[in-house]
């Protein structure tokens, strides 16, 4: 068979620029790496005492990520044991131009942590808590640790992490690289904003300590940097005393009203935890929780009457009236009832409750997330917006959900910002919306797939429609890497992306660390 001529391999797409308006001519589903230099790379690592596991059985465990859509089989796997091993590996990777994809909990959804035929670096070999400082309320931990393991270690000392993703099997290092949003993010910001200091292995294999005082530029690039500027091996994080929480639910049948109330409560700092979880767009649940009885009392005295949410009984009567007038929607009513019956008790399980308070939100939320939202595939496109654009973005995204899936959930949160884009360069090219001040907002649009099989194309079309809303409205996204990276230039503009590309090329001359995530 004739090989492709060199000109075909290299020339750019000459279809006129009006074609696929706005969509960049960029391959977003990467090709499998061709393996050039792999043998020499492995041999060099072996000579330095580092073994790459190349067995098929071992590699197969890394074939996909939490999204379950993108597939890529690594050529070899290295379970990280020390920063020195990682440094040696990255130096060799630069020399032989071997792509390295880093993975912690593997909970990306767009294939960001997948290796397409090259080296998979599994950080879960570095998952020890190094030191807990009870006086200054900080913890030093290896970055491959799961948040639930960290929570367990802190809990023994009566301490707690500050904010972490609701899914506790994500790793600390991966989370700091992308954000980490919790329902207390309106109060504490994202997880990346809890980091005080990091140990990082740069793409060229230097081991560097960095913080807001030391190697600041690297610190700011690595936080929310989508793994482009280094591998986080250790992190010092702020922590706090552990407190049980009191949770209240307010119910809405109007998406806009619930979103407006969320914005109001976030911006008034009226509660310690705030978020919206919906059942379709019919039953909308505003979660409001408190660390202290004083804050709870203040909320009920000062804010309760100013929001429109119903209590459970009031909402049940409202819904009964609605479905009595719309009897052809009986299937939807039954779905909502079943969902309520199974989900709500899981958010206050007797084993994790004490005197009406949730004593272990880590377990409660993480379990509920996997049980009710997890599955063999997780499709979670999102929009991250300023306060002003949030309600409209949620409504438009909801319309897309209705057209694509019979059942879905929206998850909305606020995110406190600490400073401006100038004072915190980490916010640049991240999920933090460029036009947000003080608070950003995010909404995830998650279909409930059950056992139904949908094609990847169906999911991709759905995600594209959600992300097109973001392009039209000038928002950001939480998950803009991997398969969705075609939206990066559309959302952030060429100037900013080129600036980051230049920084990346300088930091990672062979462009080997986490390729295909952003660039």
């Amino acid at each position, binding site marked *: 068979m004739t090989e*492709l001529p060199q000109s075909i391999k290299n020339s*750019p797409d000459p*279809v006129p620029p009006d*074609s696929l308006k706005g*969509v960049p001519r960029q391959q977003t589903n990467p090709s499998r790496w061709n393996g050039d230099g792999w043998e020499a790379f492995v041999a060099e690592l072996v000579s330095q005492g580092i073994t790459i596991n190349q067995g098929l059985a071992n590699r197969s465990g890394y*074939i996909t990520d939490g999204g379950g859509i993108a*597939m890529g*089989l690594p050529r070899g796997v290295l379970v990280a044991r020390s920063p020195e091993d990682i440094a040696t590996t990255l130096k060799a990777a630069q020399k032989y131009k071997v792509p390295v994809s880093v993975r912690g909990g593997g909970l990306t959804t767009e294939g960001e942590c997948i290796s397409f035929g090259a080296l998979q670096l599994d950080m879960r070999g570095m998952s020890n808590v190094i030191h807990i400082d009870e006086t200054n309320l900080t913890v030093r931990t290896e970055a491959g640790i799961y948040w639930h393991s960290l929570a367990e270690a802190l809990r023994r000392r009566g301490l707690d992490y500050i904010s972490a993703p609701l899914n506790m099997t994500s790793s600390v290092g991966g989370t700091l690289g992308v954000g980490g949003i919790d329902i207390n993010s309106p109060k504490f910001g994202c997880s990346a904003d809890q980091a005080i200091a990091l140990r990082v292995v740069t793409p060229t294999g230097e081991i560097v300590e960095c913080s807001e005082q030391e190697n600041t530029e690297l610190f700011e690039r690595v936080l929310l940097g989508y793994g482009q500027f280094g591998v986080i091996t250790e992190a010092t994080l702020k922590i706090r005393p552990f407190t049980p929480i009191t949770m209240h639910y307010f119910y809405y049948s109007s998406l806009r009203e619930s979103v407006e109330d969320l914005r109001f409560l976030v911006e008034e700092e009226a509660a310690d935890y705030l978020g919206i979880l919906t059942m379709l767009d019919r039953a909308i649940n505003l979660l409001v929780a408190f660390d202290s009885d004083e804050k709870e009392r203040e909320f009920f005295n000062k804010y309760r009457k100013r929001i429109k949410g119903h209590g459970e009984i009031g909402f049940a009567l409202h819904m009964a009236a609605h479905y009595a007038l719309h009897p052809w929607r009986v299937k939807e009513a039954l779905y909502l009832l079943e969902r309520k019956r199974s989900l709500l008790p899981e958010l206050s399980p007797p084993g994790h409750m004490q005197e009406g308070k949730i004593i272990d939100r880590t377990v409660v939320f993480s379990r509920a997330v996997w049980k009710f939202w997890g599955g063999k595939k997780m499709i979670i496109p999102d929009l991250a917006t300023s306060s002003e654009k949030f309600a409209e973005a949620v409504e438009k995204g909801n319309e897309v959900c209705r057209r694509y899936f019979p059942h879905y959930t929206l998850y909305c949160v606020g995110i406190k910002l600490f400073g401006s884009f100038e004072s915190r360069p980490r916010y640049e090219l991240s999920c933090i919306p460029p036009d947000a001040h003080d608070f950003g907002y995010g909404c995830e649009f998650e279909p409930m797939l059950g056992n*139904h*099989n949908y094609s990847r194309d169906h999911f991709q079309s759905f995600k594209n429609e959600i992300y097109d809303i973001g392009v039209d409205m000038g928002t950001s996204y939480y998950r803009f890497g991997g398969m969705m990276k075609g939206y990066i230039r559309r959302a952030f503009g060429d100037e900013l992306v080129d600036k980051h590309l230049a920084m990346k090329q300088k930091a990672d001359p062979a462009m080997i660390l986490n390729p295909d995530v952003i660039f």
Partner: protein
Amino acid sequence: MSKLENKPESIREVDVLIVGASLSAAAASKRLVDAGYETVAIERYALPRNKPCSGIISPRGHRFLIENFGPLPREVLHDPTSCRGVTFHFRGMLQMPMDFDHGSTPHLNRRNSDHWAIMRSKVEVHDSTCLIDLEDKGTHVEILARRNGEEVRYRARLVIGADGPNSQVVRSLYPGYRKSIKWFMVKQHLHEIIECPLDPEYFHFWFHPELGYYTWSHERNGRQIVGVGYDAEEKKLSLRHRMTIEYLEKHYGVKLKPTEEREGVVNNFGLSLINRYVFGKGNVIVTGQAAGFLNMIAEGMSCALHSGAIAGEAAVESMRRNSDLQSVYRDTIASEVRRCSDQWNPIKILFDRPHEADFREALSKLQGRDKRKVIVEIFRFLYPWGRYNWGRQILMQAVLRELRGYYSPSRWL
């Protein structure tokens, strides 16, 4: 005795064997190779090979190519490199130009584009290798092929048939199938241009029942293509082509030199209209045009790419989870069936936007009398199709689609 019972010792064992090396095969290969499965694609011709095709891919197909195989090199495109839209022509010189929704779309050189895509998928291709027969053993599939006159054997966990409308995979699976459906012949003639006032930026299609079922023209590499499609049993395509040339000269002032080159292909047109797709059985699935996917204006490349990718994904899913290949494939292919059959669905055409060009908007731009004339002409154009008895089936499928939200899988083979 089956041809497969006489087994030589040398058999190539693979996870998946793909029959064909065109766009649907490339898309399926991409998914399988990415996931690390040992995959071989066999192709009966030596690559790169010619493929009779207009080459005008829809914007959705263009996006798929970019996202999965990268930016298109110049060599995979004809000249003009792109097409802005479609112009419908009706008797009485009535014209309806419609731009594609997402701007111009590529004019693919199928010889090079298919070769480029299959190579970019990184699958191992055995070209000049023709499938002779296959036998599903339940746990695997035995495949007999021929290369340069010699028998070649494969043993695969799964087989994907992506070998076009006249599929040998379908014939092996369903021996009587070929005789059970209607076949059409499509021929495109390339002419040197003396004078051609037809806008070279558009694909031109004639709603003219006397010229043919499928009559089109567009420019390619300085020559003009004039193509005609009709019932394969009629065997008068050359006559229809001559009539079309005369018609174009008389009504449009198109002056062309005699045919320099011609290409023809048989077509299983109709399966997507009546929701009669062929998706295979056991460990063998069928995709692309072999399965019956064909968009309106007979654009098959976009649905070949998407259905091919879905076949690849279904194979990956089935092997990873040890789940039934057929049920995974038939669940996941439903989205592509909706997209494709919606394009032919009269309810969708009247009340929705199933195409990537806005027919209703173009119609609304016409004067009242012309609007009526267009509708009458479309009905006149459809009249000869009555002999295939598809009308009731199309209507029934359209109504059921509205009621259920999907096309019934029970009609699929």
